[in-house]
């Protein structure tokens, strides 16, 4: 049944090559993003001349991309060495001011389930209900952030992955410890030029849940998510615009999502869920209108189409096993 997924997963494409360090050389782009982000934060903290609008906005943008890298890395560790993967999680945690391993519970285990198992998705769009949709976009992390950390804390008490709590604690210690040190040495500079970008990225990745699922049908197989299919956008975002196929085949490396999206989502996905530009989508739905867009039957596109997908629980079990192993 999963015949279409196998070639993409196992294929040794140009983009799928690894080297001695990485499973996939495409991940050097992710390492580059994180390194640039750290460099920009350091520049703003240590060099007064760098405390300008350009550097600040660039840092906020890179912080968001840092959170995207967390997402990708926690689905599939980028290094061949398990130790390096754990260390990299610490580095990423500082960038987002939250422990990267929280994604295992909040994203891989809960969000990818939606509410199939009768338990709510901590980041479901219906967590906010202002009439003016822009307020929902702004307010969303204020609600979903605490939902997520309460949920992760609960999950951490019962996880059978024995070293999770240790890793989670180390990431917290590094992220909050280093940020705390920066605050102690120069409070205002650290607050304005380190903490604000960190929070922008962390809160931005939470907002993505609203952007990518609001008005979608999470019970459907091919219309539960909104995709942003611009090529330049996806180059920068490491293909995180292709969200439907990411949910359906969470084990796929991000570098092949564009190919598999084009091959599999095609006619099964309502055209309105393939947005050419996130900026235009945000303008259209949040800034140039006051009301929340009405829900419509977006799943109609997949009715009568063969699915060729394993059952959701099987796909998720595979993805979970991969995340927990790295």
């Amino acid at each position, binding site marked *: 049944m999963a015949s279409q997924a196998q070639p993409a997963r196992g294929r040794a494409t140009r983009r799928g090559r690894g080297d001695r360090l990485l499973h996939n050389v495409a991940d050097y782009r992710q390492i580059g993003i994180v390194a640039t982000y750290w460099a920009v934060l350091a520049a703003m903290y240590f060099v007064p001349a760098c405390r300008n609008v350009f550097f600040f906005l660039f840092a906020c943008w890179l912080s968001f991309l840092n959170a995207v890298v967390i997402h990708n890395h926690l689905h599939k560790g980028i290094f061949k060495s398990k130790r390096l993967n754990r260390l990299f999680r610490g580095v990423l945690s500082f960038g987002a001011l939250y422990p990267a391993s929280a994604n295992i519970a909040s994203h891989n285990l809960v969000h990818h389930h939606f509410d199939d198992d009768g338990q709510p998705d901590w980041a479901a769009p219906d967590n906010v209900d202002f009439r003016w949709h822009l307020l929902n976009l702004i307010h969303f992390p204020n609600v979903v952030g605490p939902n997520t950390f309460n949920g992760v804390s609960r999950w951490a*008490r019962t996880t059978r992955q024995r070293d999770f709590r240790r890793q989670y604690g180390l990431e917290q210690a590094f992220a909050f410890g280093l940020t705390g040190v920066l605050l102690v040495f120069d409070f*205002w500079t650290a607050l304005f030029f380190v903490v604000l970008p960190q929070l922008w990225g962390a809160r931005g990745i939470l907002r993505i849940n609203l952007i990518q699922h609001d008005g979608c049908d999470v019970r459907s197989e091919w219309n539960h998510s909104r995709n942003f299919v611009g090529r330049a956008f996806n180059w920068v975002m490491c293909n995180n615009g292709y969200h439907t196929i990411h949910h359906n085949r969470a084990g796929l490396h991000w570098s092949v999502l564009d190919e598999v999206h084009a091959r599999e989502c095609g006619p099964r996905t309502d055209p309105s869920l393939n947005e050419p530009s996130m900026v235009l989508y945000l303008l259209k739905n949040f800034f140039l209108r006051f009301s929340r867009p009405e829900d419509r039957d977006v799943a109609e596109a997949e009715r009568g189409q063969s699915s060729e997908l394993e059952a959701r629980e099987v796909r998720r079990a595979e993805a979970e096993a991969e995340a927990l192993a790295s």
Partner: protein
Amino acid sequence: MLTKEIMGLFALGILWLNGGLVIAAAYKQLRALGRLRRAFVAARERGELISGRVVEADGVFARRHVSQTGRAVTTKGPSRILFTDGPQAFEVRGGIVETADGPITVAPAPIAASEVWPDPARSGEALGCPSEDAFDEAWTDASKFKGHAREIEIPVREGDSVWVHGRREGDTLSPWEGRPLLVSMVDPTAWCAGRARVVSLFIVGAALSLAAVTALTLVPPHFGLVSTIGGGLCLAWFLAIQPLGTAVRDAVKTPARQTLGAEWQRE
């Protein structure tokens, strides 16, 4: 160049925008509670909200049913099982409620048209660990990946004091078209008033504390010691108000929507 003054104003703007939204969300909850309370008060006047004692029921008068999954706690300490809620359902089976004005028949309602608000004591009885054997039995499954599945029944029985809210036809209460028949073990009007006080307190406390930390930050000389302490408190306020806001949101969910959870511990 982004000066401290520009960034300070920008950061205060973020603080006030997000703080304002948390307070606004709480105010929406307060208004919803007010609407609900007014609806109950009006229903009482029309005889559509009655209170009394269940004097006749075919076994169970009404029930809340919750599926839970229990997982073994893996942190250090005694053996414990942590339960989380899954899907839930309500059912009003009906019976007769003796009120001060005489008996009222409560018609059975389909699951989709029923809502039950049990009291905390009754919920506690259903959630607790009945025996050491039950713990041991659950522990085996709870220690596995899938966890221990259990079905919780929280009943409203004959002899219980209840409030019933429904469509009145003569001496009978039944569900409305599109609105459920409510059976509650707590006075719903008083419950709304109590929760409204909690939200009001939160709104006033949040607004006053936000004003206080902002004022401290603006104490001259700007970015001096007192101002910096104020800045630190602003950051702490920003990080604290979000979980407090969601805690208030959870506290004012109606008893039908309250998460039950539970934790068993081996004695």
